[in-house]
């Protein structure tokens, strides 16, 4: 049986690999799927570390909802014309060269952290936080929820500003 530390390490490596894939992929759709995969690995890692609710949020919002939004956006726009195989391969090689220092850096940082184990002196646990999730969200963090509502309003205006005229043009001039 693998220890928790080993499983987490494997998950983290998988997460970094799928994140790299998301950046490297020349196809938007694949990039989106890789991004969702990253979230899935992260969600499993969060679950293994004992935060099931955070894992559920990560899985449903980042892996689920956002992927749906991205894929529907991609299905609405036309893919680029230039999709010859050798071009794609060249593009991929170019990107690989550009991003090769990143995994090396991450690996070195990971090994360093692994060698100098960080023991933080205090970890909040259930004794310190007797509140349930709903109490925290609706009582302690009520202002932040209000802030989130403002954020969503900003997002709505952003979509109107940035995309409304595209939609108009797409439908042939009618609103």
């Amino acid at each position, binding site marked *: 049986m693998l220890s928790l530390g080993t499983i987490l390490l494997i998950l983290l490596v998988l997460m970094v690999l799928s994140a790299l894939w998301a950046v490297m992929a020349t196809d938007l759709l694949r990039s989106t799927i890789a991004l969702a995969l990253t979230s899935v690995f992260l969600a499993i890692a969060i679950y293994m570390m004992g935060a099931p609710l955070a894992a559920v949020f990560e899985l449903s919002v980042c892996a689920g909802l956002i992927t749906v939004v991205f894929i529907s956006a991609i299905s609405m726009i036309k893919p680029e014309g230039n999709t010859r195989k050798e071009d794609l391969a060249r593009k991929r090689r170019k990107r690989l060269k550009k991003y090769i220092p990143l995994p090396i850096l991450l690996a070195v940082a990971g090994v360093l952290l692994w060698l100098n184990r960080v023991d933080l002196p205090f970890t909040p646990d259930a004794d310190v936080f007797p509140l349930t999730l709903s109490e925290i969200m609706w*009582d302690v963090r009520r*202002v932040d929820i209000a*802030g989130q509502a*403002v954020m969503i*309003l900003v997002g709505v*205006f952003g979509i109107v500003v940035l995309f409304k005229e595209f939609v108009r043009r797409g439908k042939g001039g009618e609103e």
Partner: protein
Amino acid sequence: MITLYIALPLAVVLLLNLSPRRTANALSLWCGLVLTVFAGAYTLAMPHVPGLADAFDPANRVLQWKIEAGNLAGVMFLSIALVVFSAFWVGRYLIADSNRRFIFNNLLLLCMTGMNGIVLSNDLFTLYVFLEVVAASSFILIALERTNAGLEGAFKYVLLSAVATVLVLSSMALIFVLVGSLDYGTVKAVLTSGQLDAATSRFVTFAIGLFVVGLFIKGGMVPFHGWLPDAYSSAPTASSVLLGGIVTKAAGVFTLIQLAQNVFGWDKPSPVLLAVGTLSIAVGAFAALGQRNFKRMLAYSSISQIGYIIIGLGAANEVAVVGAILHLFNHSTFKTLLFVNSAAVEKQAGTVDMDKLGGLANKMPVTGFTSVLAMLSTAGVPPLSGFWSKLLIVLGVWLSGAHAVAVTAILLSVVTLAYFLSMQRRVFFGRLAPGLEGVKEAGGWLLVPEIVLAVITLGLGLTMPWFFNTFLVPLRSLWSL
């Protein structure tokens, strides 16, 4: 009723969007103007006793929110209201399409909500939520006209802002693990208790470092300033007024002052802040010297002026910090004024390229005169308001023992004067540039904010001896030294 600062703008946005579109388009400007005037007047009338104002605030029972708004918050509310007020006028003048103007007005109100929220927060996570509200509305304000330059500027801002967010969030996570709370008071009590062991205090220092670097990015401090000139100069000028006037100050500088005092408990001169501040002053000033674009020059000038606020904070004594806060207010008035002037020039002469402008002072007397006032104030020429704040900052920095920084700050003030004189010569003085014979003074929509801001710049400078006792000495209580 301090919660009104975030509740009212939000309510106005909701009401405007629920009413019929034609009425809302016409009303949005006037609602915004009335709201900002009300916010300013309310701030001036607010009792200057922390805690008293919201003792009977029913909104606090709904939001379960312990608010602390002292004198520093008052200064911020006033600056925010003033800049948003000016941005409304400029938007009315420059944005022709009424639908786009409606969205611009709404975004201004939402950004105002976010900035007021930053001022009111006393919890790190709440602060983060409102920081993001301000950042997101700024992205959209920069990209408002969907020009290529605007989209590029917004994209740069999005990227650097994301980096800042990662730093701030990681720092918060570390602080939460170490302290078990994100409440300003609790965190400060633990951090300043002196009972942390060596390993923990190393983590604390690391966490604070991450947070401060995140705020440096948000505030556009050198060497994290890469996004700022592009964002300011490529944004529609009405948005530049807001961004240059207050956004970086609320998101970066005010937050830094607030955290240094209420969370990190810094009470010793900080070499890092002094170094970053001096670097910002120098890089901003020298980069401004070489600009051709009026708005880009103002952006670099902002970096330089924010450096003065940072060295004031870094000196960490009453005189310097009071000077820094005063400079924050002053800078938001005279930099807004200069951006409004650039809006007038852009609209009337059709360009902000300083090599193609010249001799506009005769054609645009009010704009020319107010820009002379604003630039003299920025350069710290007495008796304008900028002189007093720079004087206090330099005195405070000298008292803290950082003599080299104080001398550098004074010398670089001369560079400020140099680039602004060159700007005046190329835009307003000298012979009229060819093709500008038909230029007229900007319309009333721009003259109102120009005159209001110029009166504040001049008036605050002339009445400073009076303000010093009624306005600045109470501020001292913020900084318990």
